[in-house]
């Protein structure tokens, strides 16, 4: 059997005395639609930051296709095929919607900087190709009609969708979505739910997502990991998670029977 796409092996990170993520292990196979949940401050985003190279794990390992990527700089990780969105939207605000997505696709550029400075045909053709690819992605997230709008002028829900398109433009093997539905109204959430599922099904995109909205995660994800205080407390399919007393305790604050 080939190595899993992503494997966390007792990944741990400490900030001084605080253990933000403590010995978390799970495996993601190609094509998974995987959920990561937990109460506020459980270490979900920190875990994303370890996987995407923002932080280096204090101990433990992160393997991608069997090779360690722990401590690799963020831009190298993106090149290796892990892309992400941000919980607190981080778009390139004064750039247009289309330009935002082209930045994501740019890591696959082949022409040199000198050719661009001289405005030579290869650089121009590449620019056009990247713009076309970006337009195709904008169609998927239904933003093609606002391609030339400044991204800061988009509505909140549109900005979240643009973040997904920008991450997909890197053509990642694994897409990490950090609270994609945060701040959306029920109808927008419904649409996003369909969109994420479509991205996984039609584009064979492996997705790992963080989400607070239980109904959203339960209806979308096939497997779920629950974190609390940096520790993994449960793992399994939605039904298992729903009935796990540890998870209920973590969310509702009840004492477990032990």
């Amino acid at each position: 059997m080939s190595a899993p796409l992503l494997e966390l092996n007792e990944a741990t990170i400490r900030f001084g005395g605080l253990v933000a993520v403590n010995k978390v292990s799970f495996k993601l196979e190609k094509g998974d639609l995987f959920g990561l949940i937990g109460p506020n401050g459980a270490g979900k985003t920190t875990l994303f930051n370890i996987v995407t190279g923002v932080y280096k794990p204090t101990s433990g390992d992160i393997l991608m296709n069997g090779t360690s990527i722990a401590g690799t700089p963020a831009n190298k990780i993106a090149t290796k095929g892990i892309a992400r969105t941000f919980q607190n939207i981080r778009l390139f605000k004064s750039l247009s919607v289309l330009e935002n997505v082209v930045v994501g696709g740019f890591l696959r550029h082949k022409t040199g900087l000198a050719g661009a400075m001289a405005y030579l045909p290869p650089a121009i053709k590449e620019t056009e190709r990247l713009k076309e690819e970006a337009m195709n992605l904008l169609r998927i997230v239904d933003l093609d009609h606002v391609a030339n709008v400044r991204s800061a002028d988009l509505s909140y829900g549109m900005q979240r969708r643009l973040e997904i398109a920008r991450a997909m433009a890197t053509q990642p093997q694994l897409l990490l979505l950090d609270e994609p539905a945060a701040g959306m109204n029920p109808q927008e959430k419904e649409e996003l739910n369909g969109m994420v599922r479509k991205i996984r099904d039609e584009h064979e995109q492996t997705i790992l997502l963080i989400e607070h909205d239980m109904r959203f995660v339960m209806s979308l994800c096939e497997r779920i990991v629950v974190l609390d205080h940096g520790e993994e407390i449960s793992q399994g399919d939605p039904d298992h998670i729903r009935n796990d007393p540890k998870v209920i305790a973590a969310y509702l604050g009840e004492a477990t029977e032990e």
Partner: protein
Amino acid sequence: MKFWGVRIASILVAILLSFGLEKLGRGTDSFTQQLIVFAGLYVTLAVSLNLINGITGQFSIGHAAFYQVGAYSSAYLGIKFYPQFHGNLFVWLTLMALVGAAMAAVAGLIVGLPSLRLKGDYLAIVTLGFGEIVRIVIQNQKALGESGGLNVAPHTTEQPIMFVALLAVLCIAVCRNLLKTAHGLPFLAVREDEVASSAMGVNVTATKVIAFALGSAFAGAAGAIYANSLGFINPDLFNSTLSISVLSMVVLGGTGSITGSALAAMILFYIPEKMRDLKDVRLALIIGGLLAVGLAVSAIRYVIFNVHKSAAIRAAMHVGIIIGSVVIAEIVAFALGKIPALAGTVEGAKLRLVVSAVVLIVLMLVRPQGVFAHHEFSWSWVQKLMGKKAPSTEVAA
């Protein structure tokens, strides 16, 4: 092929215009010629600083240092090797510009690599410090004339107008081309958000260093020409005042706009130079003028923030306010002129720096994003102004 046709035509137009400027300049006195050259150098400095400050968002206030590195490289090599050089002056200037660019790019790398981990104010302080270090180190080198400076060989009695024009055009073209292709986007992305840039695979440090090296290289090339044009250089010519005035050109023009930087460089260079000729100015008029500027700024700010009418109406209101202020200035000046204490005059040339400062203050109050903001000049924009529909393809330079 249409692409190459337009391309070659644009290059030919640039060369012809530079040549025309040279011919035109030859008719004037040597002072005017030097002004044209300096204006071209300021355009190059402002546009290259805009690449670092405006496009990549790295706040640098040490641009004079790179200009100085280029100037001293060219001056030093000129003294050593020009007597043995038997070629065309144009060839020599090209060589010096290349050497100046290379030396300044190395300096840009040296300051860039360690300090680009810093952001905002901290980077600004480091670049300011670097500028001072370069100036003071050169001031203490015997081989570089210490504070006495160097007499540059060859001192070009014929001012290199065409050369400078071409350099400025090259600098503008490189920046513009970069922004026209996808290769310019990582620079803009780094300005907007470093964390998101690196998550998208952009090597943030490399991008910043490239911007610094490229911007410095153009400043170095300009410095090399400056030395030959002036014929004499000393460390005082490259103090932080120069860096600041280039920075104010970028800010005035609109941070990030190449068009804005280039135009602002010419205007902010031209106004103070022109004011050297100014004869006595009545004290009453100065007071009246400042009062009117204050009134106009308040009124225009009111229109900008509180009046929600169509663009044409608001433009008409702006024009009305400006005309009104001029009238008020004249009336106040006339009235104040009756007061004996204010009947005196001030030497016009002394007002040069005041005017630059007032221009900047007014701009910050009325249009803080700069005259051009992020916008660029383009032919489709001209056609839109003239009421035509914008074409889908744009002319390439």
